[in-house]
């Protein structure tokens, strides 16, 4: 009995911790519940690039990230999906019109020439830009939309001011001439550089550009979607012919991370792959609120009926199962919060369904217990073999459910994934609560003499009385 008591204490602690945790860190709500827009951007292959690889997809994602940040949406989610898609979630955006316009086009990368005697201005603008960006990060956390928009306006003006300090070459040296860009460690190995490669025509234009700038202290402005992403200067040694050969290295004491980021940005801007918006889903904020409310009420209503049914039908064990079910619900909810599962409507449905299904384990055990009691075994033995013999059915049943969930999770997308994950988590926790929690409670219950009556476990027992009672005492 000592063991059961300490198990129960452990469960109690777990439940309290779970409650505290889910109170403190609630699971994030999906777009279908909080309202907002979701866009799926498909990257199309072309004759030159018949296969979209991870490199291209990362590039596109980087470009999309840059553009979304310029929209000033708080908490956007941008992730790659499958082999050729980027998923963008914009919470709170009811009309995706602007996002659609901004995201639809191909990225514009351009190498520009800094105008003479603008060096100090550029430094000043860059410094204020860094401040504005830091402020933007802070504001995003505060979710003060007015302040975010104001700061965004400042950033835009700043970007334009910087862009005004540069001019395009003739013809413009843009992304279509760039063949590759990637971060690589310096020969000494303590820093990183970014290597860039041009095609032949691009190489010529680049040589021309660098010849003009070499030794002047003015920089090449590398612009992505009209925003300066890097401004390297060219050494005086290239003054005669410029940087020739179509390849160059941007040095600048980059960390590996920074060098990679810049490489990806450059590649994204150079992408000759067109993007297309394959799907847009917009849910109004109040619409989401409505469905979450009604679904949760419905789920709780259904659950209460289940709890009542269990007590009426299974008596004392039913009550114990109810406690185990509530423990189950609390622990499962906490595990969603812990794993930061985004709750969608189907996810919540999966959760409610899993509560209904979690009852199954208890039902199996109690039916088995009743059978053993009817066969004339003692109460203690019946309860014990009820748990023991039902276990293999419970395990088999749950594993087959998990197999279906795994298939859904790996092959499905979006909403489907959420459902599979919540259902699988529910199944796992239900095994724990049915076996550990119900079991311990049950054994504690039969150790209390007042509760040690077979009628409390099984009504209309044929020969409830002497033989059972006597054996219980053992």
């Amino acid at each position: 009995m000592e063991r059961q008591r300490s198990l129960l204490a452990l469960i109690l602690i777990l439940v309290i911790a779970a409650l505290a945790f889910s109170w403190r860190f609630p699971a994030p709500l999906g777009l279908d519940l909080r309202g907002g827009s979701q866009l799926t951007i498909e990257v199309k292959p072309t004759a030159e690039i018949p296969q979209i690889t991870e490199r291209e997809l990362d590039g596109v994602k980087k470009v999309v990230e840059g553009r979304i940040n310029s929209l000033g949406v708080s908490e956007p989610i941008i992730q790659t999906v499958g082999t050729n898609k980027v998923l963008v979630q914009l919470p709170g955006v009811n009309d995706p019109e602007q996002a659609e316009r901004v995201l639809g086009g191909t990225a514009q990368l351009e190498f520009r020439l800094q105008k003479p005697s603008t060096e100090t201005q550029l430094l000043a603008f860059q410094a204020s830009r860094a401040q504005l960006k830091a402020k933007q990060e802070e504001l995003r956390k505060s979710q003060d939309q007015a302040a975010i928009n104001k700061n965004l306006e400042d950033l835009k003006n700043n970007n334009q001011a910087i862009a005004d300090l540069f001019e395009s070459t003739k013809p413009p040296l843009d992304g279509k001439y760039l063949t590759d860009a990637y971060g690589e460690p310096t020969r000494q190995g303590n820093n990183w550089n970014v290597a860039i490669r041009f095609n032949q025509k691009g190489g010529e234009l680049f040589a021309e550009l660098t010849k003009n700038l070499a030794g002047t202290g003015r920089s090449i402005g590398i612009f992505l979607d009209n925003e300066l992403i890097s401004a390297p200067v060219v050494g005086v040694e290239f003054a005669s012919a410029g940087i020739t050969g179509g390849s160059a290295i941007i040095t600048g004491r980059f960390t590996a991370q920074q060098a990679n980021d810049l490489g990806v940005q450059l590649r994204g801007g150079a992408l000759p792959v067109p993007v297309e918006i394959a799907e847009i889903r917009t849910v109004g904020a109040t619409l989401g609120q409505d469905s979450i409310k009604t679904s949760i009420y419905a789920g709780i209503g259904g659950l209460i009926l289940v709890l009542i049914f269990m007590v009426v039908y299974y008596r004392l064990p039913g009550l114990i199962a109810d406690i185990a079910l509530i423990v189950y619900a609390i622990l499962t909810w906490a595990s969603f919060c812990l794993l930061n599962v985004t709750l969608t409507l189907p996810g919540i449905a999966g959760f409610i369904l899993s509560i209904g299904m979690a009852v199954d384990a208890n039902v199996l055990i109690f039916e088995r217990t009743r059978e053993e009691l009817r066969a004339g075994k003692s109460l203690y033995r019946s309860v014990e073999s009820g748990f023991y013999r039902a276990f293999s059915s419970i395990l088999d049943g749950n594993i087959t459910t998990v197999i279906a969930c795994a298939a859904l999770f790996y092959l499905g997308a979006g909403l489907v994934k959420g459902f599979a994950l919540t259902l699988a988590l529910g199944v796992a926790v239900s095994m724990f609560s049915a076996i550990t929690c119900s079991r311990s409670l049950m054994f504690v219950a039969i150790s209390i003499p007042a509760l040690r009556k077979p009628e409390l476990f099984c009504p209309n027992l044929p020969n409830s009385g002497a033989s059972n009672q006597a054996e219980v005492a053992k």
Partner: protein
Amino acid sequence: MKLSINKSRSLWWAISCAIILAGIISMVISWQNPNIRAPLRPSLDFVGGTRLQFERDCNKPGNCDKPIDINVVREVAKAQGLGDSSIQIVADKDTRKENGILIRTKNLDREQRIKLQTALSEKVGAFDEQKNQIDTVGPTLGRELFNSGIIALVVSFIGIIVYLTFRFQLDYAIFAIVALLHDVLVTMGMFSIFGLAFGTEVDSLFIVSLLTITGFSVNDTVVIYDRIRETLKTNSNQKITEIVDDAVNQTLGRSINTTFTTMLPLFAIFLFGGETLKNFALALIIGFTAGAYSSIFIASTLLTLWRERTGKYTVGEATGVTDTSVE
């Protein structure tokens, strides 16, 4: 009460066959129907297109005085070359008055969509931006979604066969899958009929429901199999018909109670839950009912028939026994 399920097994099979056949006929009819062209009426998720749902803002004075005239909405759509769109007037939740418009059309781009929205709100009243729902799905995405759903279904079938063969024997696994196919077919058939009768569409959540039905139904079958295996171990000389009959009867209380407790929240969601989940809950209700039926009346009777024919009465003779504890 004791059921002798094997005595009237041809009756159980006939019932299932009749329901499945009705479903298949409905799928064929629906395939021939020029408006559907698929066994089940596919939603936007699968065929692509744009779905717009607007609701009038009734907080503005006078905005909702007159009911929405569906003909006015049709005129507006027709004027923009969207005459073949499906248009519905829907009731909003709070007031139960018909203040919403649901339009399903071919793929609209941003300009076309805004044009339609503006024209509509001029004719019928201002819309509440907070309640707009706009979905646009490209046709390629739908096909992908459909394919991945089918693959998920096949993969989980294979996974279940492998697992059950390992835990039980191959013939158990095969009949469990037959029962699964039964449940999936019944659900699809019913939804095909609903599609013809009430215009019910199947979306990506329908595929989710099919997979959930798969998991649940096999769960049910396994409990009965578990009991059959257990009895075979102790009473290997008993007739297989009796063993199966007993196993079903011994687990009947559990089957009914589990199905019942799972159905309670489902009915609650179906009756009172959010709009999106209604059909999902309905599919699960049908599938779970079929699942309980097929575990009791189909999977077990087929196993009996098979064992009678092949003479595999006992565990001792069976091949591929995984249980080593047999005396």
